[in-house]
């Protein structure tokens, strides 16, 4: 769906994006992680042809530089900072988008209903909340049914409820076969991604499926065991013998970090033991929190540096 060949972006002597080559498959979801200024938005804007760049980007087989209009027909873009004409109503903005996409207005109702904005269509954009603007951005991006969605920090301006709604929407779009590229500096989108790329200072640090990346990073999951006080030390010893670290006992709850690769074995042994375990919780490590550790370490196994 997306073919990137030696794409590089410089501002004078400063390199915002070092030469990058990659393919993104149809129907996949690439999550690009990295701190602010890492080069995530530069890559997205290059794909849109908004920034001039060296190299070649093809969207659905169309060269962005040679036929920007054709390439952009395949893309729905939700920018990092939603910029709208504040004086327009939601509906008028949608009409403008349909015109820009060389389409009629038939799709507007469907798309605004999809993001629950149809009832508020007569409201001016300046009177909308950040969450509504974010949903409007998604609706406008969806007009024309693009095959590829580029979502730049899509959850940066919305509250928890909005984030959950957004994740639900993303799931439905993925189920509908859309290809998605999402950038984030810290969100809960990792579990929806088929591939994760970590980028910093314009360079790709690591890339791969989230599970593989977590394994490669030797990530620990956290388990919470509710156990009678007298057994806590024995349980700790059992877990320790199986590679668990970072113990903490609070009341009846014993917390420990267990390597995600051996987690299942540890849990089986625990449940088969004679200890009086009354409850058990497992907290899966998220790729987003692990990438922070990765950046702090200055690289990763399998790095593309």
């Amino acid at each position, binding site marked *: 769906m997306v073919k990137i060949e030696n794409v590089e972006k410089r501002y004078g002597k400063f390199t915002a994006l070092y030469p990058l080559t990659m393919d993104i498959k149809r129907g996949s979801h690439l999550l690009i992680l990295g701190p602010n200024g890492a080069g995530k938005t530069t890559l997205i804007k290059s794909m849109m042809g908004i920034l001039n760049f060296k190299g070649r980007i093809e969207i659905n087989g169309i060269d962005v530089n040679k036929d920007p*209009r054709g390439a952009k027909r395949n893309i729905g873009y939700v920018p990092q900072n939603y910029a709208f004409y504040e004086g327009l109503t939601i509906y008028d903005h949608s009409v403008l988008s349909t015109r820009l996409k*060389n389409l009629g207005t038939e799709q507007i109702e469907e798309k605004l209903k999809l993001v629950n904005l149809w009832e508020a269509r007569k409201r001016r954009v300046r009177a909308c909340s950040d969450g509504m603007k974010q949903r409007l951005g998604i609706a406008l991006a969806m007009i*024309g049914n693009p095959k590829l969605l580029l979502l730049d920090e899509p959850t940066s301006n919305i509250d928890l409820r909005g984030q959950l709604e957004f994740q639900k929407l993303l799931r439905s779009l993925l189920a509908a076969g859309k290809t998605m590229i999402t950038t984030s500096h810290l969100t809960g989108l990792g579990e929806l991604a088929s591939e994760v790329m970590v980028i910093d200072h314009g360079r790709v640090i690591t890339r791969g499926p989230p599970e593989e990346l977590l394994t490669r990073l030797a990530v620990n999951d956290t388990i919470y065991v509710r156990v009678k006080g007298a057994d806590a030390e024995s349980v700790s010893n059992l877990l320790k013998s199986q590679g668990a670290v970072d113990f903490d006992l609070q009341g009846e709850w014993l917390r420990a970090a267990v390597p995600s690769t051996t987690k299942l074995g540890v849990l089986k042994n625990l449940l088969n033991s004679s200890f009086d375990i009354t409850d058990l919780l497992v907290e899966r490590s998220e790729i987003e929190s692990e990438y922070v550790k990765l950046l702090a370490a200055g690289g990763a196994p399998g790095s593309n540096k």
Partner: protein
Amino acid sequence: MASSAVDPNIFYAIVAIAAVFGISTIALGMRGRLRSMNVRGIWGILSFTFREAIRTKWLLLFAFIFFLLAVDIPDLYLASAGNLPPEYLPSTLASLISVSFPLIPLLPLPVGSVSIVDERESGTLQYLLSNPVTKAEFFFGRSIGLLLATTAVIVIGFGGAAAIVYTQHLAAYAPIILIMLFAGMLNAVMLGIALIISEFSKRKATAMGVGIMVWFILAVVSSLDQLVISVSLKLGAVPALAVVLLDPVESSRLLTVFGGGLGASQVTNSALVVQHVLRGNSFEYVLISVILWVTLTFAAGFLIFRHQDAA
């Protein structure tokens, strides 16, 4: 008047080269793209730009100012009493030209100089260009939208006054239409310059300041009549002619002088220089010069925009 130091043919050659450059830039920009053009997209940008621009208080104020300048209130009193002197129209129009032409750049310069930088600052340029619209289509839609809005102000101001005052005979409308046409051309030149200012500016406030400064230099600070005499005495008439034609405000004003004798009472040193060098073809060459101004400023604006990052 000093004799010509430069062969006029050199001047004509420069004009021809500039014409070829401007026209070929536009032709290359459009090459092979006319058929696949996103006409609805261009219309969307054009109509939106027009609607937003025409609503601004600045443009409404200018429509009112142009109306007041053109309506000439004392004549209104006389007209209402049926006492207008037979020769009132040429003198009214001559004074209208000399007063209104230096003000015309104030219409497109502030509006045009903020148009692109404002979109860039607010992020809406990114929104527009994330749709299947090319930079050329955006530039085209934006330029024409602004051109129509600013030209409408001139037409409403002057035309409204004409409809009220010059109602005695139809022939009276011809000169005012010519004035509107030449004022519209000056407006187009200034809009082209304003768009270039906007492209190079990092901030809206800077762009606005530079726009006003350009107007100040062209219309207020530069004493073209004195400059033309100095250049003419020192270098000859052809360089002096170049000085005149390099000032779009004066060139446009001269069009009204040569184009219909409207500003005959306003003949200045610059008009004399033009007549001395170009003789019977003064109007044609000044017209070409103003058309070149329009073509070159928009061609340069387009080329700059195309090679810039949009965000």
